């Protein structure tokens, strides 16, 4: 009796493993993995959506990616529309890139559209959120039609972005990052920005947001400085294009500039409220490695100090200029508002943060030391 029951139970336990997925089965050969998605403005508040799916069908020759466009009111409805046209059933679980147009980002619609990624668990929340300088639709089409020497667009852009993060040219902004920052008070988002340039796609820098709306953009070099103030440049391969002291005779660019690999030792932000205004001091401690420098002088300690001081002042000025621009645009990606909320909560509650941020006194203090200069004296 016991043995029979044991066998019955064993059989019943095995059955689910055999039958698992009967209702939710996904046959890989019969589906297309959506890997890149472009979204831009369409008339009457609608969305122009472009899907890109790698073709893995040996019967299809000459094309690497299936691209579909449509106008829709909801992102999810575009999938319904594409399902009527696509060669295979669409699956969004491997989606890598969400490309938003600058105009759409400026209207503050990204977080709203992203909700589909949060709601449906089959979607990947690690999708990149990117702003395209130009039309995402045109970028996807041009990339597939003209850049035959490059991998498919999703792989290509993904690789560009990962490299840009490693070299400190952009802040990593995945869907979940973007959504949670867009909801958090006192902190604003940044996203990578890309555009078509000559025969390639280029990571141009970062888009700045204020209360979910894109309000400005900064180049890749400034993005690195922003990362130094937001997080850290430690373990990044960030190269700073610095001007160096030069004599009147030295007029060529290689004599006037140096490529310095920056590394960050520490960051400290101190905040106080004076005369009902936030006073913020940002202290950055950086060290550098001269990757590219003219043939002389750096074996001399005085010369190293001179270069260090010169670059330090440039870094300070660049950081200060960047802070000024962000204040002007009322964009607070450093999260100064979040720190004020944490430390001076009653003040934070009493003001409109973005207005207070604009009038805040924010000072950058940079300490820079050139510590390495390679194998040339």
């Amino acid at each position, binding site marked *: 009796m016991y043995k029979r029951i044991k066998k019955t139970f064993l059989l019943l336990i095995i059955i689910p493993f055999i039958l698992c997925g009967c209702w939710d089965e996904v046959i890989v050969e019969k589906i297309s993995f959506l890997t890149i998605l472009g979204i831009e403005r369409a008339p009457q508040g609608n969305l122009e959506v472009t899907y890109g799916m790698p073709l893995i069908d040996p019967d299809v020759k000459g094309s690497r990616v299936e691209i579909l466009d449509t106008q829709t009111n909801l992102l999810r409805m575009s999938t319904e529309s594409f399902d009527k046209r696509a060669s295979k059933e669409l699956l969004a*679980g491997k989606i890598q890139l969400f490309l938003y147009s600058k105009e759409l980002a400026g209207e503050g619609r990204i977080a709203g559209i992203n909700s589909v990624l949060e709601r449906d*668990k089959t979607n990947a*929340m690690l999708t990149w959120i990117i702003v395209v300088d130009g039309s995402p639709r045109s970028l996807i089409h041009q990339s597939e039609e003209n850049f035959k020497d490059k991998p498919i667009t999703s792989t290509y852009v993904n690789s560009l972005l990962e490299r840009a993060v490693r070299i400190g040219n952009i802040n990593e902004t995945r869907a979940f990052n973007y959504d949670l920052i867009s*909801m*958090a008070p006192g902190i604003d988002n940044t996203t990578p920005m890309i555009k078509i340039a000559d025969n390639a796609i280029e990571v141009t820098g970062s888009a700045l947001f204020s209360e979910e709306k894109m309000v400005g953009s900064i180049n890749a070099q400034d993005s690195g400085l922003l990362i130094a103030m937001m997080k850290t440049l430690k373990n990044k391969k960030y190269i700073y294009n610095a001007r160096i002291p030069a004599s009147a005779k030295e007029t060529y660019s290689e004599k006037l500039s140096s490529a310095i690999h920056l590394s960050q030792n520490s960051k400290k932000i101190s905040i106080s409220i004076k005369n009902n205004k936030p006073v913020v001091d940002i202290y950055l401690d950086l060290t550098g490695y001269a990757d590219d420098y003219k043939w002389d002088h750096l074996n001399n300690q005085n010369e190293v100090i001179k270069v260090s001081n010169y670059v330090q002042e440039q870094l300070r000025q660049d950081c200060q200029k960047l802070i000024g621009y962000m204040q002007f645009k009322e964009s607070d990606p450093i999260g100064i508002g979040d720190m004020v*909320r944490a430390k001076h909560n009653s003040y934070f509650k009493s003001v409109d943060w973005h207005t207070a941020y604009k009038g805040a006194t924010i000072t950058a203090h940079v300490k820079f030391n050139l510590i390495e200069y390679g194998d040339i004296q």
Partner: protein
Amino acid sequence: MDKRKNNITSAQLMGLIVSIQVGVGMTGLPSNLATVCGHDGWISVLIYGIIITAVIALIIKLMNRYNNKSIYEINKFLYGKYLGGLLNLLIVLYLWYSVCLCLRSYINVIHADLLRSTPSFVLCVFTLIPTCYLAWYGLKYITRFAQMIYLSIGFCLILYVLVFSELRFNFLMPIAQSGIEGIKASFTPCIFAFLGYDVISIIYPEITNKQKAMKFAIGSNIITTIFFVILVLVTTSFFGEEMLKKSIYPMIKLSRSYRAPIIERMDVLFISVWLPAMAMSIGGYFSVTYYSIRKLLNLKKKVIYLIVFTLITILLSNVPKSISNIKVYTNIMTISGIIFSIFLVICYLFSFIRKKGVNPHV
């Protein structure tokens, strides 16, 4: 009933309680707390964890006053045959209700995260097969399997370490902003998360080393409290309270948000490790309920009653139809659990007045 198959050690009791508490309790705890007390949820968890520890100590003290008796026998001593019988029936109904609700919550997680199209009924059947199998053999086997919870907790802790660099501790500031009001408002979600400790009053006679029961029962609640505090701290500092308020299962969202090399989608791994732990919440309640029914009705035909019990459980678990619907039923379970806990404390106090059956042995 083969006594030895239900005999458990105090250490096994600890695993069982932790698995019942953590399995289902953790899924919605951070978001429920964020809704009622913002970013101070961890303080509430800590406070209620301490209170529950005191309640557990009183329950064990009550059980120690009656040698080898469960709450069912104690009720008859304290309140007489008829009132005691009625109270016993209510306790069994509460436990059965908990089984059905835990099963429904579990199925809901699978529905939302894994198998969207699979009918709930089918998922219920397949979920309960291993539970039935273990319950058939007795409490000992359920509690042995319940030790799996430590593996799941370990996996969660690894995930916390992995996301550590992404945490923003500013999201936890200013500390205690919600004040006393926040702590009061977090009563219901915290108590729901901690429910499960009350099974001690039912399975206590089956514990072989009762002298260690107090230590291990309190230990179980300390483990749960520490785990919940870390859970709330990590999820709040990762998502921030605003995002947390919008999530239903933040822990699963956390695993979806971690970019793991090679594995890529951590959530799939997390769910596969967490499902057995969640299933143990059901398993624990299921076996204790089945044990109670058998004990009270003195059933002989084990197979038939187990099948009938399982079928009714499956049917009842399909009553709540949506997440909002489950929340309403959850509130009823929480209130019932609170009443049951208060009742146990009253029993302890009443046992000093009505001393029938009192036979301290520890």
